[in-house]
């Protein structure tokens, strides 16, 4: 019976492979998960891999806003990320959701800045006793 490799070690390994420029990482990861019956952990492992990549200077920023991001905004977000990880390359994964009404939610390096109007309203409601 194979020893269960922790997610952290897996993510570390695959991040290294990615940085080294290997191409079939996603296939190998999928195969491993199916083989060890750990397909349910996929989302978390991917998150871990993204974190490890961010630690290696490849930051993926998930951005949600009510409208499409302008270039200026993108630059500002990049600057924000650089305050945590200077000189990192920032890749954007954007999502447009009108229900957030306004503002932006940035997720990167397992950190979040949520200045959407929707979030502020939720925080206001959270003040209920």
């Amino acid at each position, binding site marked *: 019976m194979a020893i269960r490799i922790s997610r952290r070690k897996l993510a570390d390994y695959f991040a290294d492979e990615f940085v080294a420029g290997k191409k079939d990482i996603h296939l190998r990861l999928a195969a491993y998960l199916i083989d060890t019956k750990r397909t349910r952990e996929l989302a978390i492992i991917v998150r871990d891999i993204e974190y490890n990549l961010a630690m290696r200077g490849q930051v993926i920023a998930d951005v949600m806003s009510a409208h499409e991001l302008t270039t200026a905004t993108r630059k500002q977000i990049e600057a924000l990320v650089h305050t945590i990880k200077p000189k990192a390359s920032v890749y954007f994964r954007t999502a447009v959701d009108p229900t957030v009404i306004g503002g932006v939610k940035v997720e990167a390096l397992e*950190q*979040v800045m949520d200045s959407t109007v929707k979030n502020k309203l939720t925080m206001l409601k*959270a*003040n209920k006793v």
Partner: protein
Amino acid sequence: MSQLSITELSDDLRDAIIGLEKTEGLEKVGIVVRVGDGVAWIHGLRDAGYSEVLQIQTDEGVVEAFALNLMEDEIGAVLLGDDSHVRAGSKVKLSGEILEVPIGPELLGRVVDPLGNPIDGGPAIKTKLTGKVEREAAGVMDRRSVYEPMMTGIMAIDAMFPIGRGQRELIIGDRQTGKTALAIDTMINQARTKSGVVNVYVAIGQKQSKVARLVDRLKQEGVMDQTIIVATSPADPASLLYMAPYAATAMGEYFRDNGGHALMIYDDLTKHAVAYRQMSLLLRRPPGREAYPGDVFYLHSRLLERSAKLSDKLGGGSLTALPIIETQAGDISAYIPTNVISITDGQIFLETDLFYQGIRPAISAGLSVSRVGGAAQTKAIKSVGSHLKLSLSQFRELASFAQFGSDLDEDTRSQIDRGQRLTELLKQPQYDPMSIWEQYASIAAITEGIFDKVVIKKIKDAQIALITRLNADHKKLMTELDKGDKPSEEIQKIITKVATAVAKGFEG
């Protein structure tokens, strides 16, 4: 009567809205991977510390949890609130703080939950200070030996197993033997004797109806003003039950650290251990004996070590503990009872047999002990208490011979007689703590043989008559005795005289 002030309300809301203007920077965030049975497994938050407070964002607001299992891939956090709104995928933030509760005199007279939120329907509690729930106990050099008495008002305890300020005395017995009653009487006595001791009663998994009755009773007796009640019901999450005694101790420590005196009553630690076992099993920690986790001793030892008498340099304050343990079928050699017995400075053992024989409080004089003993006893009671204990132990040895009646020799018969009288004397009704002079007079009347001719069934009546007489005719002198010093010749003579006179009225 508080006004329904609209200004106050609108100011409050304004503050809440202004608070929204500021945007927090990038905050570390984790995700709930799975949740159930009060435990949330969180991915991320790599910098979380042990016992750190985590804030889970849900649609209904923030649910707090604290991290107890720090593993390579995920964190096991125990929820401090309802888990029904927490979903897989919910975001979790670090608070950066170890769990703290509000502490201070503002809590006096209130019933709160272990997080310091009021549950008595009163106004919100605003304290100036907060105290850590988990805190290290005072070191050896910070302490002083226990020497001040903590009067419980219960004759059997004050005479034979005296408790001192800063001592830990375990109250152990089966269900329905009067454990909580002893604790309540001690609290009432602190108010009656104006000792200045603050009571902190922790109800761990107790029925809410029981707590409500307790609050009513304390209010009636005028004790509530110097009492804090930390209440958890069986319906609360195990994490709150686990936390309750630690949070309450933090509240008691405030008084100790400021030169005051506090009394902690943990009712009861058996339920505490059970809640901890539940939490540990759900956190997948390996079970040990009786399925308790391996550190169940540490659970109680670190709690009870915080009860101490501080040195004069640190203010001379004290924190006395009366933990309660419920045994099954009188088995004090079970796992949890033996653990706690080895931690505390003595125990008061309540027996079901004695209870049903009508001896209430049902204290077993043979199995109970106070390891601090005479050092923390008032001189007045000490002078009569030693005879009491000796007579009772002699009686116990001979108790089985009592049925032989007239076939025994004079000495044996008189010992049995004396023992029966003492047993009768030590019965005490609930909610009726006795002051020092009342105890002294009652015990002296029997140990000096004055009540030897009184019919055994009438001993209590004779005692009441004696106290009434002394109270009516010599109140000033008797209240002198309450100071605790050895009684003067004059007082002794008066008591002998009155007791002799009273005894005549109850002779058989």
